């Protein structure tokens, strides 16, 4: 016998594939993915055309923009902040893209993407700077910039609109052409999800964002550069929103003063439904992306099953509440499991 018997024994079976499997089933993404699969199955049973190739392509196209926005928003929410100005940023970048094509029809398309992301990043940096410098909650700051950015767009655009017909054909084709059955812009979104997902899981700076969201004061004590990291999260969110803005111009028929308004709450909803806690520190961008797919699929599936449009928003609302309740239940259950498994035999 040794002194160590005075302390509770712990599992020694961690490590290896078993550990990975256990972690997988405990993760917050599983319930959301399960809900998505159930939704698709039920809808297909009611209306078999829901899974026709064209319909699947539409589902993917509809989800693309929200996926990218949700990934950016997840970065910010994980740090216990929020960015409500993304709808306005998307509008500014989308209208800017239309203006650019109008003024310089031969502009190289990669340059348009670069310019859009840079524009978004600058707007995100304004948010990030205000949040970190003024030490005012991001909710208030970005509510302010949401109106400011929208005001700038309204006075810039006036009643003017740019239509997809005005853009180069190659640009519009990004939302039409497919590769291996997947639309090009959706592939862009998938690449974004994977890249940011790896960053958040396996790069030190990404883990810092979790630490900041988990306990900001502890992060500061530990020597994590809290301000610069939060600023970077806002810049990244802005850049991704910029990317989404350019893709929006490719995907949708027209862009104008109202483009993207109201989108911010849909995106926050997708992120929360996807298992990213609004209080920061937990959740993944994969979850946020699945949440985005789920919310955009619900709209399509309610249409496919001919549910009254009025019910659609209420349904989304119920889903948000369900996600929060499931999340809470899971964490309570895990806490109880830890208690029982780590206690000695009493």
């Amino acid at each position: 016998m040794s002194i160590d018997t005075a302390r509770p024994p712990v599992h020694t079976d961690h490590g290896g594939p078993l550990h990975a499997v256990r972690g997988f089933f405990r993760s917050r993404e599983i319930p959301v993915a399960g809900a998505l699969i159930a939704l698709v199955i039920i809808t297909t049973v009611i209306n078999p055309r829901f899974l026709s190739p064209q319909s699947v392509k539409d589902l993917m196209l509809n989800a693309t923009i929200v996926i990218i926005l949700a990934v950016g928003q997840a970065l910010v929410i994980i740090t216990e902040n929020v960015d409500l100005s993304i709808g306005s940023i998307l509008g500014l970048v989308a209208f800017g893209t239309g203006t650019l094509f109008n003024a310089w029809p031969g502009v190289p398309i990669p340059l348009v993407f670069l310019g859009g992301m840079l524009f978004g990043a600058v707007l995100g940096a304004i948010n990030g700077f205000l949040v970190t410098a003024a030490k005012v909650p991001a909710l208030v700051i970005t509510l302010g910039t949401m109106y400011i950015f929208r005001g700038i767009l309204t006075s810039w655009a006036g009643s003017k609109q740019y239509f997809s017909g005005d853009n180069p054909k190659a640009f519009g084709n990004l939302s039409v052409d497919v590769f291996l059955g997947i639309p090009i812009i959706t592939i862009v979104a998938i690449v974004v999800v994977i890249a940011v997902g790896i960053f958040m899981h396996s790069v030190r700076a990404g883990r810092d964002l979790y630490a900041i969201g988990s306990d900001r004061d502890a992060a500061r004590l530990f020597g994590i550069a809290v301000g610069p990291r939060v600023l970077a999260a806002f810049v990244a969110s802005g850049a991704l929103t910029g990317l989404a803005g350019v893709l929006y111009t490719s995907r949708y028929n027209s862009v104008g003063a109202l483009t993207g308004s109201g989108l911010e709450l849909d995106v926050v909803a997708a992120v929360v439904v996807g298992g990213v806690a609004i209080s920061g520190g937990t959740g993944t961008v994969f979850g946020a992306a699945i949440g985005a797919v789920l919310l955009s699929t619900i709209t399509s599936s309610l249409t496919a099953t001919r549910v009254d449009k009025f019910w659609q928003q209420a349904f989304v609302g119920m889903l948000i509440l369900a996600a929060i309740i499931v999340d809470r239940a899971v964490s309570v259950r895990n806490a109880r499991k830890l208690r029982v498994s780590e206690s000695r035999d009493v």
Partner: protein
Amino acid sequence: MANEVQPGIEPPPPSGTPASGTPALSLTGASKTFGPVVALADGTIDLRAGEIHALVGENGAGKSTLVKILAGVHAPDGGDFEVGGVGVSFKTPADSKAAGVSVIYQEPTLFPDLTVAENIFIGRQPRNRAGLINRGEMRRMARDLFTTLGVPIDPDRIAEGLSIADQQIIEIAKAISLDAKVLVMDEPTAALSGVEVDRLFGVARGLRDKGAGILFISHRFEEVFALCDRITVMRDGRYIGVHNTADVTVPQIVKEMVGRELGALFPKVDAPVGETVLSVEGLTRLGTFRDISFEVKAGEIVALAGLVGAGRTEVVRAVFGIDRYDSGSVTLHGKALAPHNPQAAITAGIGFVPEDRRKQGLVMDLSVAKNATLTLRKALARFGLISGNRERRTAEDWSSRLQVKTGSQDYAVSTLSGGNQQKVVLAKWLATEPTLLIVDEPTRGIDVGTKSEVHRLLSDLAGRGIAIIMVSSELPEVLGMADRILVMHEGRITAELPRAEATAERVMSAATSSLEGAL
């Protein structure tokens, strides 16, 4: 038998190591003010490589401020600061860490959502060739650290819900993994019990022998004298003096700390024991404690003793109604107390002073007055509105009775020192005039002067017919204060000792009953 298992007491280290080392860290005449409050007037410390150096002083003596200057949290307003013989001025905690200074705080600062392993290695996780975090390696390194420390903590669990003792151990593992040249330990042992303290001391001596300079802050003199080579004394924000441990005695140090002689440390006076106030019958919470039965009578102080993790805090939390229990009953004044209902417990006359005052006892951003009267809102209200004047009067009454040192009742509690915060928590509960008071580690992290004030206060309350349950890990406190001692071990009560029969050996052997024959 296990009589050899003594908490935290080992013979002093062989002298000869100190006094010859090179300077690891030196701070001379550092000052720091916060608005009108002078937190530090003359912070001076001379820490050498290869020594363990104690820093002692009463609450509000400026120790915590000094630690924060070393940690790079506060920049001093004046004074000289050198690390390894080189002048430094830390702007951020990162600067301090980069200079090889590691600080273990009194209150753990972990990330509740991250795993234990990540808490240790955040910002410097091991990486593979692609520059990505190698989680397998990180897990292995964490497990190795815990093996070195002799503590089985699962590196993959999240930090949320860990006991303070385990959180402290993770902090220590973190500092060890940083291979710090200077290790500052701000009351690391406050939440540890005997076995863990011995283990920590072993680690600290190992680090010292490898040439680290260790600054050790503690209110437990037996630890200071067992572990440390030299002692620096502070009082009222000023450096008073430094001594070789071998050349001084406890009374001398205490005298320097408080600037006056102290009376007896544990002044529990016999009070007439009245009727049964609380009776607990077969209380069980699966996986935590089982079949707990005991009574507390008016005027009696009953101590719950045992090692950290024995389930003492959990029992009193269940009695008060914070946690659910699976079976058993709690009866107060002959009436059954509703389970899982703290509001009912307060109404029935129970006061509860929790162990972790920062998280459970105080609202740190609220003023002293608001905190002290938090439990009294109904009594202070007129027509449903709380009167600020009455609030202030009540708060002032209790603050002055407990001698809370604060510039104003309106200052936020977070600006007070640890001992004064504890007094505010006590004031908050005493203002409700409870018939049963539960205190969990009432003097954890509190200096000698305040400690005896708290003890005198508890004794006084018992004398006025209040029944008191005191959870404590400090053996002298338990032996000095309690009329009866219940010893817990691994979720069960293993001994009930009246004051006359209680000895350190009997309490310790009951607290470690599964260890019989070991060592």
